[in-house]
């Protein structure tokens, strides 16, 4: 046995590898953490504030409130609370996060630093425009990149997220139809493989949703689509590359058909990262497309937001952008922001979609990412994203069951045929993958195949990282085929929590802490 300089053994001695029960419930670096409300030291605060100036209240008829009910903690307690909570999260900084259609790629910290420059982060949206010329210049620069990369003549930066962008695009289509005097066009075609937001958006705007089936090759069945065209069709919402990870080969014919029928082509750009810098959507005949800055341009997902969903528009839809937008003239940049758009607007704008001017903090991050890559870097990034996905597909197609023939684009789709007769489900595979140190792939989406496993590695994964993931999946598939059902159904075992009872959560929802709920629910 080797000894260290203090004469102690430098290699572990015991053969006992069982995970011990601990007194605290903690397990080494995994520390149990009570709710912040259960750590109250009344009167304590983690912020030292000066005394309240002695002025009489000027609240009119409104009374000062009673106790709010917030707990008091010191700064170190708060730091420890959130640090411990953070350690219960998987993240892209931790490892491979192959969620199909979600694009979990590296989030450069330069982007964070740039967004925090006081000239961006500490600027009020209603300062005089003469004092925010650099902020408007940045929005204009981002708009220029988005228009150039897509080949589209107009863009709105206003939408707060991808689904909000869909709303902007479909509102523009409604407005254009109303402008043409064809408000009677109320049917929207949506492929069955679409993201749930597509039908939800169309329905929210009062359109009826008409599903188009997928063909045997995982793409829109052109003949079926053409058969659905008619004088009441407002347009089509099509994701390209689609959610099966495939490029819609017939996209030009689809565009021509929908235009021929008097409708518009809304493209869901959630998967633009596959083709950015390599294909200009304008060349595909689209009329509007949202771009998720948090996917293609790597602004952080932040545990579920904030996102940002700019939308590019064709000439036909360009007049129907929401406000505000930036214009540039001899006197510099200015904002067209009024709902009535008296000064310099076109009068056809669809109105305002959120307060102020869009997700500026995300614009800074996205432009920082774009400038870092440049046109050549984006070309390479899209190429590597597609290469990585095809590599995973090639290496796994003998083990898992690929749903459609490749090549795929940025993500590859498998279904659960390989699990047939094993008693193991797609969900079980995903949970076992967690114990192997990976975030699972997207499961059970798209709906067009059974038990879908949709894998999107992104361009920021190394070959070695992919090889390890492939190895893990192959061994899990083997284990499933050997019939080790109990292993899968018990997974995950090495996580801060094991499988959670979602049925109980929904049946009797506990959506907030209350002093009364604590003892019963916290009981071990």
């Amino acid at each position: 046995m080797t000894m260290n300089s203090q004469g102690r053994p430098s290699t572990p001695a015991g053969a006992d590898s069982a995970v011990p029960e601990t007194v605290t419930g903690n397990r080494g670096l995994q520390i149990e953490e009570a709710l912040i409300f259960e750590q109250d030291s009344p009167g304590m605060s983690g912020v030292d504030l000066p005394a309240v100036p002695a002025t009489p209240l000027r609240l009119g008829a409104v009374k000062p409130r009673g106790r709010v009910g917030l707990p008091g903690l010191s700064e170190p307690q708060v730091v420890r609370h959130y640090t411990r909570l953070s350690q219960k999260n998987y993240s892209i900084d931790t490892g491979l996060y192959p969620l199909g259609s979600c694009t979990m790629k590296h989030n450069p910290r330069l982007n964070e630093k740039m967004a925090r420059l006081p000239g961006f982060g500490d600027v009020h949206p209603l300062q005089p425009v003469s004092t925010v010329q650099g902020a408007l210049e940045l929005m204009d620069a981002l708009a220029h990149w988005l228009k150039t990369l897509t080949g589209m003549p107009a863009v709105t930066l206003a939408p707060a997220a991808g689904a909000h962008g869909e709303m902007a695009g479909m509102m523009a289509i409604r407005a254009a139809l109303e402008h043409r005097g064809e408000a009677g066009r109320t049917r929207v075609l949506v492929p069955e493989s679409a993201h749930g937001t597509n039908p939800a958006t169309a329905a929210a705007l009062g359109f009826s949703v008409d599903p188009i089936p997928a063909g045997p090759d995982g793409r829109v069945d052109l003949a079926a689509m053409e058969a659905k065209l008619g004088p009441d069709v407002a347009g089509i919402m099509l994701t390209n590359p689609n959610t099966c990870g495939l490029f819609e080969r017939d996209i030009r014919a689809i565009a021509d058909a929908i235009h021929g029928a008097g409708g518009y082509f809304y493209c869901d750009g959630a998967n633009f990262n596959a083709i950015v810098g390599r294909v200009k959507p304008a060349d595909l005949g689209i009329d509007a497309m949202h771009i998720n800055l948090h996917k293609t341009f790597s602004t952080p997902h932040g545990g579920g937001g904030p996102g940002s969903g700019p939308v590019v528009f064709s000439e036909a839809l360009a007049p129907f952008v929401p406000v505000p937008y930036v214009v540039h003239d001899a006197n510099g940049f200015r904002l067209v922001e009024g709902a009535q758009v008296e000064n310099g607007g076109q009068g056809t704008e669809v109105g305002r979609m959120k307060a102020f001017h869009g997700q500026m903090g995300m614009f800074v991050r996205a432009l920082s990412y774009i400038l870092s890559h440049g046109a050549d870097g984006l070309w390479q990034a899209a190429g590597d994203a597609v290469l990585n996905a095809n590599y995973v597909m090639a290496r796994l197609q003998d083990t898992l069951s690929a749903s459609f023939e490749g090549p795929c684009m940025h993500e590859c789709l498998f279904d659960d045929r390989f699990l047939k007769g094993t008693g193991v489900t797609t969900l079980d595979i995903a949970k076992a993958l967690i114990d192997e140190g990976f975030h699972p792939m997207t499961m059970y989406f798209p709906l067009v195949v059974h038990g879908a496993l949709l894998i999107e590695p992104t361009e920021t994964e190394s070959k070695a990282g992919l090889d390890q993931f492939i190895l893990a999946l192959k061994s899990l598939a083997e284990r499933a085929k050997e019939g080790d059902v109990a292993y899968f159904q018990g997974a995950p075992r090495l996580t801060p929590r094991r499988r959670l009872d979602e049925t109980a959560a929904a049946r009797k929802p506990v959506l907030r802490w209350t002093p009364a709920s604590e003892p019963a629910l916290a009981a071990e």
Partner: protein
Amino acid sequence: MRYLPLTEADRHAMLAAIGASSVDELFRDVPPAARRSGPVEGLPGFAGELEVERQLAAMAAKNIAAGSVPSFVGCGAYRHHIPATVDYMVQRGEFLTAYTPYQPEISQGTLQVLFEFQTQVSLLTGMDVANASMYDGATACAEAVMMANRLTRRKKAILSGGLHPHYRDVTTTDAHFIGFEAVALPPAPKGGEDLVALVDADTACIVVQNPDVFGQVRDYTTLAQQCQAKGALLIVVVTEAVSLGLLTPPGEMGADIVAAEGQSLGNALNFGGPYVGLFAVKEKYVRQMPGRLCGQTVDADGRRGFVLTLSTREQHIRREKATSNICTNAGLCALAFSIHLSLLGEEGFTRLARINHAKAVQLADRLSGVKGVSVVNDSFFNEFTVTLPRAAAEVVEELAKRRILAGVPASRLFAGQLEDHLILAATETTTESDMDALTKALSEVL
């Protein structure tokens, strides 16, 4: 390129495993006419960190940072001091770079934060339950109106003239496209609206704001009762979350739904976004609430844990039958809100609110002494409206040249109206010397 880990050797090996001769070949399903042979022309190539920093810093330098000058700009976005801990914690990669917590076993951090956030929002607003956040206050307001439409099966909203015009506009945009009626009243800096009289059998809700866009604080208790007696819901909007540390909360006034902007806690101005919408309701309405919800449950070993719940309301399950098309919340902004509030605690939060109010009282008294300036409000929290003897937009522009951000001309929000009205905010960041600079400059230009 520093973000791309594949080497040329890797690429060759991977192409060999795929059986393709080049990456371009993988794009063969793209119609040839649309397939580009190289990077998009007319755009620059890749750049190192230093170069990117230079370019962006040059743009940032063309803006006046609010914190670098005396600033009195509010109207829905407020400059507060953010403790260093907040921004440090939100940049932990495990929070920053995680996705929506769809795999609860490895997302308990985000989920517990959301559960605590929902509790904090419920407490602040005085409501039963809150969701895990919305895009911003304005979209939360529009969603609240649509929720009221669903609950009452009526299709008309009455929007007070004290509602922030951006909130009004977002709601009227939705009204036009989604198909309901929104009756927006003209701006009323002095109040005096008879909102209840407008409620008819088709009215789903009244939307009011507290403090209103002119800064006036109002008690809506009677309005809530009268409104509900006619079968309509009362939606209360709050754009300054810090006010909830001092004022009677909307829940105690009888609000059915609260839609608020949470930026004031933990989130920098960011030129208008991203911010965090707060959404809280009475318990009986929870199943018609839009947005994500986190709930408590137990795991296979019986330990307390958290999951996203009631997702049968949401688009990824319900598709065209969902309560809303929303697919994200404002996760990281909600986290910042939550950390700031955890640091403040009861004592800090309520004291912060009182300091804000006292600063505004001091500012109002100082401005009352400037010739030609008249304070419109008889009550306010940390923001109020004055009238000037000249167009406020001109005055604001002149003061900006002196590096003072004097507030928001009401005419910027209410195009072509209230041209002599100026709305000013004070917070804990406002100093004596800021107030000196403003009053001196105003006396000189008026």
